């Protein structure tokens, strides 16, 4: 595996693309929201 796969230079992200990071954060946020609604209720 080459070093470039994860190196993002100055943009400082662990993801290989911004889109992947966006989708990851969107999924994480939705999981948190669903968790809150299920645990805390409305």
């Amino acid at each position, binding site marked *: *595996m080459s070093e470039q796969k*994860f190196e993002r230079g100055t943009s400082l992200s662990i993801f290989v693309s*911004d889109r992947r990071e966006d989708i990851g*954060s969107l999924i994480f*946020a*939705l999981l948190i929201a669903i968790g809150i609604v299920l645990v*805390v209720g*409305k």
Partner: protein
Amino acid sequence: MVYTKKSPALFIIGLVMLLWGWLNASGNIDGLQQYFQKSAYSDHMKVKEKFDAEFRVATEMAAAESKPAPDMKMPHSKFDDAKAFQSKMCFIFGGVATLLGLLVMVWTPKEGNLDYYLSIFPGMAYMLMIAFLVRWGLDPMFANWGKAAQPTLGWNFASIFNLNYVVLGIVIGIVIVNVFKIPDWAANGVRTARFFLKTGVILLGALYSATELAQLGAISVLMIGVFVLGSIGVVLYMGRRMNTGNSMTAVLASGVGVCGVSAAVAAAPVVNAKAAEIAYTIGTILVWGVGCMFLFPTVGHLLGMGPVQFGAWAGTGILNSAQVAGAALAFDPHGIETLKVAEIFNITRVLFLPIVVLWLATWYVKHEVGAEKVDLGKVLFAKFPVFVLGFILMFALSTMGAFTPSGHYQGKYFSSEQIKEDKLLKGKETKAVEAELVRLKEAAGTKQLQDFFTEKAINIGQRHATPEDAHKGLAELIANKKMTTRDQERLLKAVGKMKGLDAVTANAIDKASKAAYHSSKTIGAFRDWLAWLFSIGLIGLGMQITMAALKQAGGTPLIIGGVVGTAKAVGSLIVVLLFIKEFI
């Protein structure tokens, strides 16, 4: 290349967290926690006093009946809950960190995805540990110092300078990177900061609801829109003319145009802003806001502005929420109208955030691509930040009532039906209100109400409140023993602050008013998650701000921020004086 560094750091961080969890659970640091959790501890003492009294009575009754002493347990106080929360967090994350720390020490991973993703945990735990320190230690400590110094200074320096977890997190990150450097084992984990910030921005959408716009008149929405979008346009124009760099210009535009720190953070990933650029924007906003906070009330008094006018001006012209509240309170320390109007104006700016982010994304892509003729639609589709859609989705869900009743205002909503039986007014209270109503219906009482409504500019919807409205509201309060409509509650809450009102009546109104508003636990949970995500993200962000990067950014952002801030303050003052009268 293998990314995971063989280091005991993660294991040690895990042990430190477990130790803190144990110290909390065992009560060994209660003395220290009493200092940090001052308000929760005062709640604890009240609960304890009540419990002690009940226990004494129960013990005496049992003794009189020759029965054994009752087995009673003290109910949980907010202080107990706060300590239990800290223990729980430390046990969960400390446990995970200890196990992973052991794994990192004894196992050498092969090159690949597993190695790479394992390498982020030490840095994440490092940021989390600092977040614990900031949120449980520094944040309450500065809040205590601010309150303690208030009588001497006349203002709360911690609140005015925004010395909360947001600013303290960035500052501590900057100190760490510039004094100690980021350790090798933490480098990859620190790069997750932006991911946490993006998740936080998405969840931010859940806190707001479009129904908040309904609280404002059309002129006010128009005024806020013009100033938000106008300031952004001017910053973008000036930034291009002064060669500030596209990402710096865009993030400054969002911070100066919308409302400070959270807007700057939200716009940053959209335009690939560097950490130092966000720091510059936040610095500009805070320095400018503090100056305005002292200047605005003086100008307001010199021009003889009314509470609604001043609230609208402060809410539009000052860039940061805490300083908007500070200026409103400095202008009218005893009134609620100025603060309320200023806060509504301030919050409404945030509702423009989705539009602003879309604009900045388009602007950035267009200018980064430069002279090359490309299909803007295609580039936008490829580059558009998906997490912004997440923010809009959350905002839409919140407006539709997916998380809490749709009419909520920052997580608080009015509901007469949900008022519990024990929160209804008691006989003594309704009798006091009845007697006060009789007095207020007499000529002197009616004049007192009229003068008060005129002085404080109290309105119902788009018209002045009248003494008859207050009479009707009080009569309904007596009949129902609770507030039944939002208008009635707002009017009577104002009446409750009138000088010369009977103390029992004022208390009864306050009690009925509080009973009618319910805090959404769901929105509270969102707020907690948001605070943690932002804490971790901002600490990581601070860790990317080196002195060299700050020098590279130069002083131009401060000049642009100052010029646009002044233009916005003067422009909004003129508009407020011309168009905003007593109604909002």
